């Protein structure tokens, strides 16, 4: 690691001010940032440790939903009683990610902002448009088995690796942001930015802005939601494909549907078209198959990730069929 200064402010406003220094970065759990600093992918000159900002560590009830502080640990959120009862897919998504030790360290905001696991991005000796804008993308003609099939561009085909973000997409979470004394909130569905010609820009977060909390609105359908993750080994591996889903079913007919995908998109992927297909139809396998087709309709594959299209469809059907409230 390269030398860096270290500060530990106790107010969000002070952290935001410090963040104005050029080449500075926030550190929360450190499980992604330090990893990338050791690999020389990130080289911040100033680290701002936000762990002393008490107000960022709370989970509050909020109009039937939750307001989750940016510093709430992944393990605490996953085992929170409200989350287990009302948003089971969120708990399942978090617990399917990383390992118990990492989840004890990882924060809510850090999880949302974790960088891709594209092996070229993580190898600082390789070109990569995301790490070094304009240097090229070796994944497109290289080894791309873990790469995205949705939302890709000619510049980048890397997947967003977060499991938690997939569930939060399906739940229509809202990201609370603070910077330069001003506060704003952005729906998570508008928070992530497609790579386009600028894969280095991943979210709408601006310089000096800090995520303070994530709001999870009340959603009746989420009580019977589910997260299903398919990976190369049974545990402690990133998703090849994952599905977050929730259905509100009355008399066998779908009233409301939520569907989001992980492991296949350049951003956590919400399937609005597929959701439209589900609503108003019987909660049966035939309907789920139609939705699955719609979800991957715009897929663009590369040499080694063609398998993801079929795997994605089957995972969607399996996840929806396994919901308990289909009758």
């Amino acid at each position, binding site marked *: 690691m390269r030398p*860096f200064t270290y500060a530990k402010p106790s107010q969000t406003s002070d952290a935001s001010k410090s963040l104005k220094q050029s080449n500075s970065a926030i550190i929360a759990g450190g499980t992604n940032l*330090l990893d990338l600093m050791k690999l020389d992918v990130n080289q911040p000159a100033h680290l701002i440790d936000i762990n002393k900002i008490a107000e960022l560590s709370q989970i509050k009830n909020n109009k039937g939903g939750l307001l989750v502080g940016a510093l709430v640990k992944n393990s605490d959120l996953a085992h929170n009683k409200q989350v287990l009862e009302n948003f089971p897919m969120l708990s399942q998504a978090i617990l399917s990610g990383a390992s118990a030790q*990492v989840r004890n360290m990882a924060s809510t905001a850090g999880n949302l902002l974790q960088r891709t696991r594209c092996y070229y991005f993580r190898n600082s000796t390789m070109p990569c448009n995301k790490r070094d804008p304009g240097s090229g993308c070796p994944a497109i003609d290289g*080894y791309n088995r873990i790469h995205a099939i949705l939302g890709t561009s000619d510049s980048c085909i890397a997947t967003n690796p977060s499991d938690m973000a997939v569930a939060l997409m399906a739940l229509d979470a809202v990201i609370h942001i603070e910077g330069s004394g001003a506060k704003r909130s952005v729906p998570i569905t508008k928070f992530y930015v497609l790579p386009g010609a600028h894969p280095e820009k991943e979210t709408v977060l601006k310089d000096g802005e800090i995520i303070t909390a994530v709001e999870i609105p009340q959603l009746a359908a989420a009580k019977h939601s589910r997260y299903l993750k398919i990976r190369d*080994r*049974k545990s402690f591996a990133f998703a090849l494909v994952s599905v977050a889903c929730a259905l509100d079913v009355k008399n066998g007919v779908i009233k409301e549907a939520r569907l989001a995908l992980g492991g296949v998109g350049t951003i956590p992927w919400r399937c609005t078209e597929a959701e439209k297909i589900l609503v108003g139809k019987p909660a049966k396998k035939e309907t789920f198959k139609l939705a699955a087709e719609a979800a991957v309709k715009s897929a663009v594959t590369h040499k080694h990730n063609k398998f993801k299209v079929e795997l994605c469809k089957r995972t969607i059907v399996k996840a929806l069929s396994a919901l308990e409230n289909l009758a």
Partner: protein
Amino acid sequence: MRLNFSRRRFSQLLIASTVLSSLEELSPRIMKKALAETKDKQSGAVSSPHAYDLSINVNGKQHKLKIDSRVTLLDFLRENLNLTGTKKGCDLGQCGACTVHVNGRRIKSCLTLAVMHDGDQVTSIEGIASGDDLHPMQEAFIKHDGFQCGFCTPGQIMSAVALLKEPCGASDDDVRECMSGNLCRCGAYPNILAAIQEVRKGGKH
């Protein structure tokens, strides 16, 4: 992480990773320098470019010193305190050999900075026995032969001890899942599992 490589791809990546690892060999040297500078600082000599106050409790003992911002909690334990029971496997959060407890919870000490733990209580493998009386989990690992080379063992035991207080289900599969952050290259998994389940069922903790 394991990947399905074609043979040609594998050899390409092998070459790339050889280049990478020779680059990585630089980092321990840089680290040693940083540590040396930190040690100097303790004795009031040459300063490290960015050294910070750290007051930390490790295995019941309080330490106060100045430390370079780059030193991980793992390197601090091993190099500054000579507590070499905690192992460095991958240094990237992927193997679990560096598992310790901070304020009662298990974490990976390679992915956190020592300076971030000002005021914290750390327990390492050296801190779980009471004098000559081993922790029940240590005894169970010996009884069930829960290791071969022993390199992963301190991390396995620290994870297993933490697991006793976590919301982990009762089945063998539940334990496998809760222990998935600790890899064992020798494949001692069945015996590790048996040791953990015996301690959990016996309530000896």
